[in-house]
């Protein structure tokens, strides 16, 4: 079984199917927190629903309201099951940290180095562990 070692920026347990974004995404203006849909029409995930998925993206970008859009998605139950970024992304981590403060709920945010990051593909089944390890579940099981 393949195991990737990440750094848990916001630790937590999750499992789900990977959804890889090729381009960075601004959650504000890019994600509808009420529906979980990617609404940035110039983004490669435009129209996809991130809810319950393990969202893998290079980093967040764009306007400064990405953190609260993530908190709102967590509150509304539309957030991804976990978010995996290439390198650490404090903006997303903050959205999850504040969700814990306000709603006692959180989404794990895991930072991977570049080599590990590129081993995740859309459709992979993964389990995210508290210590930041990401386990790829063999397909067909």
């Amino acid at each position, binding site marked *: 079984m393949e195991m990737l070692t990440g750094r848990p920026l916001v630790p937590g347990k999750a499992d789900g199917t990977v959804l890889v974004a090729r381009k960075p995404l601004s959650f504000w203006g890019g994600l509808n927190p009420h529906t979980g849909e990617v609404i940035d*029409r110039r983004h490669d995930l435009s129209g996809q629903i991130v809810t319950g998925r393990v969202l893998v993206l290079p980093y967040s970008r764009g306007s400064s309201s990405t953190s609260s859009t993530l908190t709102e998605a967590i509150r509304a139950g539309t957030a991804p099951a976990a978010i995996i970024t290439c390198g650490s992304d404090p903006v997303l981590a903050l959205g999850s940290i504040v969700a814990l403060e306000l*709603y006692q709920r959180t989404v794990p945010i895991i930072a991977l180095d570049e080599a590990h990051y590129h081993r995740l593909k859309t459709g992979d089944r993964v389990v995210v562990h508290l210590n930041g390890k990401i386990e790829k579940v063999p397909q067909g099981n």
Partner: protein
Amino acid sequence: MLNGKFDAATRIAMSIIVRVAEVCDVDQLIDVSRAHIGGCTYLGEASLDFAEMFARLGGKVTIPTTLNIGSLDQYGWQIFPIRQDFAEKGTRIMEAYLQMGCELAWTCAPYQAGHRPACGEHVVWAESNADVFANSVFGARTNRYGDYLDLCAGLTGRIPAMGLHLTENRRGKILFRLDSLPMGLMQEESFYPVLGYLLGERSAEKIPVVEGLPKDMTDDQWKALGAAVASSGPAALVHAVGITPEARTLDEAFQGRVPERVEKVDMALLREVREKLSTCTDAPVDVVALGCPHFSLQEFLQLAALVKGKKRFPGVEIHITTSRFMRDQIRSLPAWAALERFGVRVIVDTCILHMRTVSPKARVLMTNSGKYAHYAPGILGLQVAFGNMADCVESAVRGCVHREDGVWKC
């Protein structure tokens, strides 16, 4: 500040700052002299819950703290298709921040409202276009702060010592050369948002250094460039050689090192970006939106000169977003008469991406802003045409998108 000596609001704010420092592997905090709150718009219950939690705990800011746009134009949201519950919550969040002692500014261009930090001053500004401006024009030091940390910094006066607060992280990485561009392009208003969009996109996380920008770049040109940089990428600092205080020379911009990459910006590249900012260029226009970031007095005067003696096509709306202070200034000048006759609608303290002023029937929005052009399709569900201010006026007169290619043809 985490122990019993401080009130609950300060303690929670401090604990959030410390957790972020941990996430970023930073073990030191620094003092900041001012904050600009980006999170004062209603973006859902979370944004309201956060502000009201601190206000309820009696939180008060300890450093001068200004407010970015709010959710509503309190002078007249009622004439727009705004839901009552959005208006109520938007008002509540604006009040919560005022209750905590923040200074009423309600603008995304604080630098044009007298808030101009000095070179080397550490600030926490949470509005992406203002971050680019503060770092690049003033040489002040701020990161691209997301919401939450802005208020936490306002309450505590502290922030993790990281990112662009540290000299070594302000080193330029990619050199963009403008020397092959035709003379005259730099007098073209839309050159700045187009170049900004290109820089944001192509520099990604590496600080861009631009050689060849005119030394007399105006605040409005910087504003347009910065907003576009921040829309297309994560950059918060653009070193303009000879303009940015810490980039007086190329060598200084790169802190004595060599660029990782050199890019020659040519017309083909810029034209491609200009086209990309529009999703349609041949259609009836429903609304012209100007003032992203907030319109300055200078821009109002420019617009007044452009619309003088012209008549708006029936049904086309002109929405201009600005601060209440800028609106009061333009209204006191003779130029206001021409704007009023043309039928412009001035919306204050907010932005059309937050307070939806555009009719649900509208399909095409025209703008001179790289940021409106970037976000309007996703947030408002509209087609966008990008042009300069004169194109916007001409399109409003004709009722359909009209763009003079002028210098872009070269």
